[in-house]
């Protein structure tokens, strides 16, 4: 008798609990959003949400509002998120980029921007999740061009087998709730470095909600790998984009900005790239960072991300 009651209670609870959750989630949802797609993939829960009031379509990789990518529906090839604009500064850093690799497709905003504004650049993209590739094609107007290739593979496995070398390698493979440790370590950054042509650079987006110790460990890892490194604090969201360059000579802020102005000439980026470089430029090479380099053996990424750096105050921009 007792057991029957218990089972009955469990059965009711197991049906009722998710139902209650579903109802509350439904009623709390913002009216002015339209969920276009919401499905589990091999790696993420992929959600595509339209925000008609803003004219935007966003890609989310979890239940949280953390945005992977954002597209202005009226201008699908423009860079909407601040960090993606900062990453685009790489195209001005290198004097004449011909071969570019992007690790982590996201919502394909950087690929579309490059396809439109730099059609001669040969662009390879590595993305681990085949569903992300499909979603970009179906919902984010990502199309093929003779110069675009997509490889469905783990970024590190690809770099190990890459059949060619690149002028720029863009790393955008960290999701808010998932930082694959093997894409953070000295061994990995050195592998990327070995796939660069002379004068090439590796650029990584350290996307986070707040500054934490992982940022600094990763900056240190770049610093240790490249003769020159730079960083851009992208907006005030805590995004940091780090640039590691094989060019041994420092690129002064004004030179970078001038090149940015030059490549923007006659194009409609939708933002001022030269201004962005002037505002965000910081030399990393000579900064003192009180954090250990990450290695394959010792990369406690998840632990570091939970901890605030004690040198946070000094490290903040003035």
């Amino acid at each position, binding site marked *: 008798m007792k057991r029957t009651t218990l089972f009955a209670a469990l059965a009711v609870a197991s049906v009722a609990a998710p139902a209650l959750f579903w109802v509350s989630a439904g009623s709390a949802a913002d009216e002015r959003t339209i969920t276009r797609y919401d499905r589990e993939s091999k790696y993420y829960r992929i959600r595509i949400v339209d925000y008609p009031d803003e004219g935007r379509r966003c890609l989310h990789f979890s239940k949280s509002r953390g945005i992977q990518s954002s597209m202005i529906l009226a201008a699908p090839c423009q860079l909407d998120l601040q960090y993606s604009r900062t990453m685009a500064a790489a195209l001005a850093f290198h004097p004449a980029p011909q071969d570019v690799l992007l690790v982590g497709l996201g919502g394909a905003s950087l690929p579309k921007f490059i396809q439109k504004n730099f059609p001669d650049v040969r662009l390879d993209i590595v993305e681990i999740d085949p569903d992300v*590739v499909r979603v970009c094609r179906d919902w984010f107007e990502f199309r*093929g061009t003779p110069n675009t*290739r997509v*490889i*469905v593979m783990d970024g590190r496995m690809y770099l*190990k087998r890459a059949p060619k070398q690149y002028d720029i390698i863009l790393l955008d493979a960290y999701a808010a709730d998932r930082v*694959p*440790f093997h894409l953070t370590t000295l*061994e990995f950054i050195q592998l990327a470095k070995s796939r660069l042509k002379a004068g090439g650079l590796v650029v990584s987006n350290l996307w986070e909600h707040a500054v934490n110790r992982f940022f600094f460990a990763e900056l240190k890892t770049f610093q240790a790998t490249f003769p020159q490194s730079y960083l851009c604090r992208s907006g005030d969201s805590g995004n940091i984009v780090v640039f590691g360059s094989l060019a041994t000579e420092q690129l002064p802020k004004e030179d970078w900005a001038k090149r940015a102005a030059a490549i923007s000439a006659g194009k409609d980026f939708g933002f001022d790239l030269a201004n962005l470089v002037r505002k965000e430029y910081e030399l990393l090479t000579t900064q003192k960072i009180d954090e250990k380099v990450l290695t394959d053996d*010792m990369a406690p990424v998840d632990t570091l991300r939970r901890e605030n750096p004690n040198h946070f105050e000094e490290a903040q921009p003035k």
Partner: protein
Amino acid sequence: MMRLGLLGTVFLAGAALMSLEMASFRLVEPELGSDLVVWGSLISVFLGGLAIGAVGGGRWADTRPSLARLGLILAAAGGVALAVPLYADAVLTWAYPGAGAPLPSEWGTGGAGGTELAVYHPPDMRWAALLAGTLLFGLPAVLLGMVSPYAARLFVREMPQMGTHLGQLYGVSTVGSILGTLGTAFYLIALMGTRWLLSLNGLVLLGLGAALVIAHSLRRRSPPA
């Protein structure tokens, strides 16, 4: 005393088992990617090892159960855990065919003015992950799988209430596994890194094995209680 010793043994062996499993993820991911295929393969290798070990260990326990033999099983598992970092890279590079070979430089239907995306899918790596996992962690998993039935055999020889005591034994072993998992995930990976983690588990198992062998010889000298 014997009873507590056996409970302590299965507790530590359970902790080391899961700690090794977590270390195995960290060891394999840099080579084969952080992929569901990798996690699934490694979990299966450990479970498969446990299954084989349980059957073999149970049979062996019936022929001549002794603390010393249990100690040797544990020490062997510890020795393998200590050795894994030495050949891990070689095994991992060998397991996935074309590890060093570059990908094709041209593929797909892109181009010719079309807008079809050129997408390249690499060769299947499921078997590579299973193979590498088996070569690296199959043997320690089998050895650790032998521990529970073997300890159980020694345990019930002493105790008449078999069900109660087997339950205790499996319970304590599982609690050890939980603490091994949490300890590794919460602290050890951040504290010591993957290779030291493997070594720590190896040393714990070696030490445990030695302790059992010593306990065995001490018991043989003193008359049974």
